[in-house]
């Protein structure tokens, strides 16, 4: 097979952007998306402006991939939003926003990717959860519930897609210094880190390491797995 075709969501900054750089370096053809325009460019990378929870936007990305390449090898569902608040102070609007992006977005991309991947009986999908799921952190009810939904979604999709040679796995990063946690009080992050086996912040490299493993052709027997960083 020629160069791998890899689709990554949420690539404007942070982990998503680092993943684009990493897989371009590895020789993949990378397609990505974000809600707002990016301020950088890379050879071999195509960017789409899209809301991952908007079905029309999602279908348009996949139509382009189908026309340009006729196949997709890897999908990394990185796009996600966080919300830290006591549940008694959380408006419904926050639920809509968080669940739409995290759960709906992940589902739509998985569905469309699998339609394309099943033609070649090959595909690797990696979804993003968080250590907030096993740690059941107070103040993260909505965010953790949305990421728990992704774990269950992944487990079921792994079963449904198995016949098509597609693996679906979850990576659960520990807190990493990105914009996602910039508004979380320092003592909350420390509390979280102290409940991990490894009492330190994670790095983007740690996440990339796991994704590399899930995307390997040799990982064909690894599906429906959840790999949390930091020691859960």
């Amino acid at each position, binding site marked *: 097979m020629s160069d791998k075709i890899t689709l990554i969501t949420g690539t404007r900054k942070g982990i998503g952007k680092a993943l684009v750089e990493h897989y371009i370096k590895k020789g993949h053809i990378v397609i990505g998306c974000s809600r707002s325009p990016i301020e950088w460019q890379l050879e071999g990378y195509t960017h789409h402006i899209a809301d991952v929870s908007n079905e029309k936007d999602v279908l348009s990305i996949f*139509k382009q991939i189908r026309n340009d390449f006729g196949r997709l090898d890897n999908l990394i569902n990185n796009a996600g939003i966080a919300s830290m608040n006591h549940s008694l102070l959380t408006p419904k609007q926050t639920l809509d926003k968080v669940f739409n992006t995290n759960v709906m977005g992940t589902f739509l991309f998985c569905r469309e990717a699998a*339609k394309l991947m*099943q033609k070649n009986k090959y595909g690797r999908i990696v979804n993003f959860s968080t250590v907030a799921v096993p740690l059941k952190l107070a103040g993260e009810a909505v965010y953790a519930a949305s990421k728990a939904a992704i774990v269950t979604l992944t487990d079921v999709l792994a079963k449904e897609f198995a*016949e*098509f040679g597609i693996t679906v796995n979850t990576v659960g990063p520990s807190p990493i210094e990105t914009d996602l946690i910039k508004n979380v009080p320092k003592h909350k992050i420390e509390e979280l880190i102290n409940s991990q086996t490894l009492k330190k912040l994670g790095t983007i490299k740690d996440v990339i390491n796991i994704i590399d493993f899930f995307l390997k052709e040799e990982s064909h027997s690894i599906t429906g797995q959840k790999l949390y960083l930091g020691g859960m």
Partner: protein
Amino acid sequence: MNIIEEIIYPVLQEFKEEEEFDYELSPELKIFGDGAYFDSITLVRFVIAVQDKISELTDKTLILATPQAMSRSNSPFRTVTTLSEYIDELLAEAK
């Protein structure tokens, strides 16, 4: 547009060659249900391929397996003819 000739038959032919089915293409060919060739997973792949074919030829994105379609007492996926009537119905609604 001749839905059977231009959409359904080409996809059935592709499946016949890829999966080595021994069916003959005909309007009465049973696609899904008792005495049909496709199991549920093959039906899923077939529906995706038909949707792709429709999109390729008409530039319309149709969803064939809607909850309404799946709960009809007579499944639209029974035969080539019932599927073609169903696609015709959806294309008319999408106009």
